[in-house]
């Protein structure tokens, strides 16, 4: 799951997958702005085949919160 999230983030932010780790977040990734946040949500939904509720969308600002949300959804 973690690797798939890294893949998605790498593809959306156009950054190498090696630059990502479990601590990566909105604050540590320069390319992660509010526009790319939309793309990230779209891409996560494509990859994991789910719909993320609007309340959750705004909270998914780190790898950890994304993994938690995905675990909850599955």
């Amino acid at each position, binding site marked *: 799951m973690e690797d798939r999230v890294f893949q998605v983030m790498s*593809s*959306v932010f156009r950054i190498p997958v090696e630059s990502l780790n479990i601590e990566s977040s909105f604050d540590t990734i320069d390319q992660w702005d509010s*526009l790319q946040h939309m793309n990230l949500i*779209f891409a996560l939904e*494509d990859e994991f085949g789910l719909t993320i509720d*609007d309340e959750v*969308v705004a909270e998914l600002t780190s790898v950890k919160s994304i993994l938690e949300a995905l675990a909850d959804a599955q």
Partner: protein
Amino acid sequence: MVTAAAAGEPTTLAEIHAALAEIDTGSLPPWRIAVLRNITVETIEPFLRFHAARAGLKAELRFGEFDNIVQEALGAGDPTLLANADCVLVFLKLELFSSGLAAGFAALDPAELAAEKAQIENELATVLQGIRTQTQGMVLLHAFEMPADPAYGSLDASFAGGQIRFYQKLNTSLREQCAEQAGCYVVDTQSLAQRMGFERWYDRRFWSMGRAPYSGLAMEALAREQVKFFSAQSGAQKKCLVLDCDNTLWGGIVGEDGVSGIKLSNDHPGSAYKRFQHEVQGLAKRGVILAICSKNNAEDVWEVFDNHPDMVLTRDDIAAARINWDDKAANIQSIVAELNIGMNSVVFIDDSDFELDFVQTALPEITIIQFPAKSPVNAEGMLTRLGLFDTLTVSAEDRKRGEMYNAERQRKETAGSAVSLEAYYASLEMIAEVQAIDDFALLRATQLTQKTNQFNLTTHRYSEDEVRTFIERDNAAGLYIRVKDRFGDYGIVGIALIETDGDTAVIDTFLLSCRALGRGVEDLLLSETLRAAEQLGAAVVSAEYIPTEKNRQTEKFYPDRGFATDPDADGNKYFYNLEQGIPTRPDAFKEIRSDLSEC
């Protein structure tokens, strides 16, 4: 490649990014796009870059400031934004453009609505004229979408003061204003949204959070639609549609099923082909040149055109035709030479993976489309939706273009130039299996003798018992060939039956299903048949071509392969002296598994 149902087409962001990485956009001419908008649409960028690249353009996007449409149109802000643009996209979300409408349609009384309408029309005129003073580039204005949940509910559509009618009136004036400005066009967002459904078109979350109304899917669809306009403007639109016949213009194979046996009628499934033909004829009326490229006997195809009661297309609709057994890439090159058009303006539609892949490999500039032969009902609308032939105008001359080419048909002698088949065959990774006909193969072998017309040297029809009795004799053998390639398993595609009389082996039956023709399969079956004859103790192989209405393509099969004409017989009898050795197996195959021990 463009496929029928867009299966396998990149649509998600990840797929688009991956596909974009494969395209070298550096050499493409730039196409500068300025985006004026009162909504967040930045997510359209990768989709636009991808679809533009496929149309041969390098899209360079610049976004105007959020909700500054009127200001930027009037020249405030960065003056280079519009001045350098080849195209201006205007995304104007009605609910943000009009504060009154944003407050809720039903809250407005008729006088207020009239005032809103007048103001919207006025600002629209300001925007369009303002853009025109700054650039002569193309302007694409997005139509207002109908309300997903109209204010007056089920009454809305029939109510004169309803929201739907109000929006329709606004769209009418938007269209009229566009028509008055040269180079200004309406993108019909409403049709796109309808096709997708509002639930998938909008994304309420990002609309609410960041004034971004559209889903990723909607962005993809919008980009695809916009690029149709770019293509038409830059001259990249397609001009000629080359059509296969069997399982494309009609269902079935005319050479096998006969004119009365093909599927083409007012009832399912023939109706699907008929509707497809109506659509193709409509394209011809819009100026698209139609051509035919079919592996068939020409008389069979023209007989369908002339005598089938449900045929829609006529000979006059067809500007050029190549109906023969040559490879389709060479035939299309010949069509292109005759019509004097560029290969990059040609679209080829066929049902066969093999033909499409072969043509695309040989002619990389051509656009290919797969006819959905397994579900022909899906063919209707496909060509229109792809928009490959879309133009910015339709003239009276367009409507006559097909006839014009038709009249010129005789003008040029065509020079067919062959494409290297060998290289292509190698890429197919074909595997052939040749074996004695056993109990498992018997039914299919029998069927082949009964059904095969075109590549059938003797056209002897046999029952299952007759085939079994034939091959069970000590002085006889039956072999089959089964072929696979990277497109799949074609199953048993050919058989040969031989029997010996003294030191002479007679080829009683030699046939191949038309789905296996022209890839060296016939040569392999022949070499293995000669091998089997040798195994039966023969020194000479005798063969015969019995002409029928359908099998003319095999007329020269034996003499072309080193068989001598039999001097003792009149007509189409040949012999092969096995002392000359067995012909080498064709090298088109990745692997040949030949086991004749049971013959």
